[in-house]
């Protein structure tokens, strides 16, 4: 037989992934992607495939992995329903700028457009929620397209990319040659910064009396945590975070004044409308952050440090825009700004904090009433984890409470679905987070509602032995929606009450140790037991059923009108 160097398209896919340094992928097999799975079988020792229990779980796991490791999360799924099941996770990764490459199988190219079994136009469906997508019908295109996919996913403002490969292209033989992609002529991942704008920014900052920083995930994605810290320490400017900026600056830093936005802290919200210069760093003025735009920081000059030109002047018109990666722009700025302290101004934040503490935080963290609060659960976790854990939260009241109170010493440690608010995110994301940071403690905080959206991933945890710690804060309600019904719909609790199963039994069904607690006296010891466990562990905490999350900016209201009750 004549020797040939040709390999199948499927094998090429695996080789491309290895070239990109991928060692773990999340996915689910099916007809149209079987050739690739067949190759995965051969490459088992180099490429670990994690079989989730649903393709959505695979996307969130890949997101969790990417968020804690900074690497690209990789997902594989079959055509049709396999591909459509990815859509939620892709949309989530798009809005939260998470680098992800999804590879889907597709029916053979001669069947395209014939409504073949499990044919689905995933390119059309995923277009609005991907940074880029591409269908491959020839094996020879595989290396170039996958190289491009990885480059696009991780460069500039990261995001999800989908590559759809027809089954015949997976079988077809080709000559394999791989070249990493590091530029595309029509794509500028990081715009060049203008030193002129940085000069202007520095001048504004140097002359300001009440400057205020709001930072977002851009600091984390740019790996610019230390530059950011240097900047705030030199200028002495108080800094508040968006939900995705959380953990970029350690919680106990004296200039960390808390969270902005709908359930953010009192001071940062109110003082947004009192600062004279607002410095936005790697954040995008989401409506959950700004409240009513007509009354958002109108008194302030606004400086925006941003990698994505399309975010500049999108929601808020700014006075100075500094394009570029904050990793590059902040050092330039640091050179130009004067050393300062803003004691009186910072004291204002402290006095607002005191008000918030008396009205809200005290009752959340040190409740005197009988019922357990979500806040005290987080406080107890903080005390035992000492701020060193990765905290993954789902979506709802427990998410807001978690982000408000969880403490962090390390960046890339807060994993939550911010922009899309995807219930069901946390359990699979925690799996990915644990695999992306195997030496760290990973604790998922999930509501009783969201937990049941991806509860099947307990199977993945059991099969892989992935030692995540799962805390379900059970209020027997879709709590966040119930809170809105209470506040804005005269307590008409339409379909928000949950009659829940025996969660501990379900965990045990997957051979995961678990416990349910209702009393304060058992809280600390149970959390200790959970964190000390070397294996996955499930803890259900029955919390007060009708508690509300405050502070709150009702939607459409001004940041100044943040309510404490």
């Amino acid at each position, binding site marked *: 037989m004549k020797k040939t160097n040709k390999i199948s398209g499927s094998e090429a896919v695996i080789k491309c992934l290895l070239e990109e340094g991928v060692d773990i992928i999340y996915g689910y097999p099916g007809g149209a992607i079987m050739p690739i799975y067949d190759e995965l079988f051969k490459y088992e020792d180099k490429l670990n495939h994690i079989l989730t229990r649903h393709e959505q779980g695979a996307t969130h796991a890949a997101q969790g992995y990417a968020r804690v490791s900074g690497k690209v999360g990789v997902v594989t799924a079959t055509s049709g329903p396999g591909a459509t099941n990815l859509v939620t996770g892709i949309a989530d990764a798009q809005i939260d700028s998470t680098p992800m490459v999804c590879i889907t199988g597709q029916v053979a190219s001669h069947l395209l457009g014939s409504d073949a079994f499990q044919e689905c136009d995933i390119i*059309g469906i995923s*277009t609005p929620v991907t940074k880029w997508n591409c269908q491959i019908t020839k094996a020879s295109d595989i290396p170039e397209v996958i190289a491009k996919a990885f480059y696009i996913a991780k460069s500039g403002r990261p995001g999800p990319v989908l590559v759809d490969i027809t089954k015949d292209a997976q079988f077809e033989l080709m000559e394999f040659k791989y070249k990493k992609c590091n530029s595309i002529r029509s794509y500028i991942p990081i715009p060049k910064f203008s030193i002129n704008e940085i000069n202007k920014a520095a001048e504004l900052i140097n002359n300001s009396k009440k400057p205020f920083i709001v930072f977002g995930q851009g600091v984390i994605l740019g790996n610019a945590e230390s530059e950011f810290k240097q900047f705030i320490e030199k200028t002495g400017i108080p800094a508040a975070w968006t939900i995705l900026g959380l953990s970029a600056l350690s919680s106990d830093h004296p200039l960390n004044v808390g969270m902005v936005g709908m359930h953010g802290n009192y001071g940062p919200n109110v003082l947004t409308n009192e600062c004279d210069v607002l410095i936005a760093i790697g954040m995008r003025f989401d409506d959950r952050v700004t409240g009513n735009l007509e009354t958002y920081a109108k008194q302030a000059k606004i400086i925006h440090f941003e990698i994505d030109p*399309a975010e500049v002047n999108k929601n808020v018109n700014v006075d100075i825009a500094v394009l570029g990666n904050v990793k590059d722009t902040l050092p330039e700025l640091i050179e130009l700004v004067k050393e300062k302290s803003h004691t009186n101004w910072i004291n204002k934040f402290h006095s607002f904090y005191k008000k918030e503490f008396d009205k809200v935080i005290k009752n959340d963290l040190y409740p005197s009433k009988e019922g357990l609060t979500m806040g005290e659960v987080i406080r107890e976790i903080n005390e035992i984890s000492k701020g060193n854990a990765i905290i993954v939260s789902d979506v709802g009241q427990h998410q807001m409470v978690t982000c408000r109170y969880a403490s962090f010493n390390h960046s890339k440690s807060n994993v939550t679905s911010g922009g899309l608010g995807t219930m069901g995110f946390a359990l699979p994301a925690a799996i990915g987070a644990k695999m992306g940071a195997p030496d760290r403690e990973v604790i998922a905080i999930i509501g009783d509602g969201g937990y049941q959206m991806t509860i099947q991933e307990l199977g993945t945890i059991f099969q892989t032995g992935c030692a995540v710690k799962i805390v379900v804060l059970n209020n027997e309600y879709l709590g966040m929606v119930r809170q809105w019904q209470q506040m804005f719909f005269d307590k008409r609790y339409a379909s928000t009450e949950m009659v829940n199963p025996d969660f501990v039994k379900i965990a045990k069904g997957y051979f995961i140790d678990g416990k349910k607690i209702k009393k304060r006296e058992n809280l600390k010891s149970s959390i200790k037991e959970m964190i000390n466990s070397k294996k996955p562990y499930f803890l259900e905490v029955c919390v007060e059923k009708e508690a509300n999350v405050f502070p709150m900016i009702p939607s459409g209201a001004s940041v100044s009108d943040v309510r404490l009750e």
Partner: protein
Amino acid sequence: MTNKLNTYTVSVYTENNIGLLNRISAIFLKRHVNIESLTTSQSEIDNIYRFVIVVKVVESKIKNIVKQIEKQIEVIAAFYHTDKETIFLETALYKVKSKSLFDEKHIQKIIKNSQANIVTVSPDYFIIEKTGWREETEKLYDSLEPYGLLQFVRSGRISVSKEAMNISDILELNTDK
């Protein structure tokens, strides 16, 4: 900033890519903006395509939309212009019964006065072409309508900007890394 709706011509230079039309139109769809017309063709540079899209929106919106378009990977550059900043035309075709041409002397005068061309004449019908501004093709439409229009079609706008676009420079800059 004003809230006045203006007509903008968006010019988009792109690599040739199957999905790009979908990607670009999705940007308008997501913002609930109606596309008045859309034309794609080759551009002045080999293998680079040009979309010309006409929309009526407020200026703040078009700025955002153009940035979103430019952000797409295979888009090289996107611009927006007001009518004053571009030279633009549309082409219209009018199919009229041949009988009208011979019976109604007046119709010949209409064609001549509007500087339209007769493209084809057959025993049954003839086809008139008029290239110009919207008002001109509309005026001819109104004039011909009484004689019975068998078919009418108007192309999307094509337009070139008065200012330079410098696409080759952009491409060179990006490849020189």
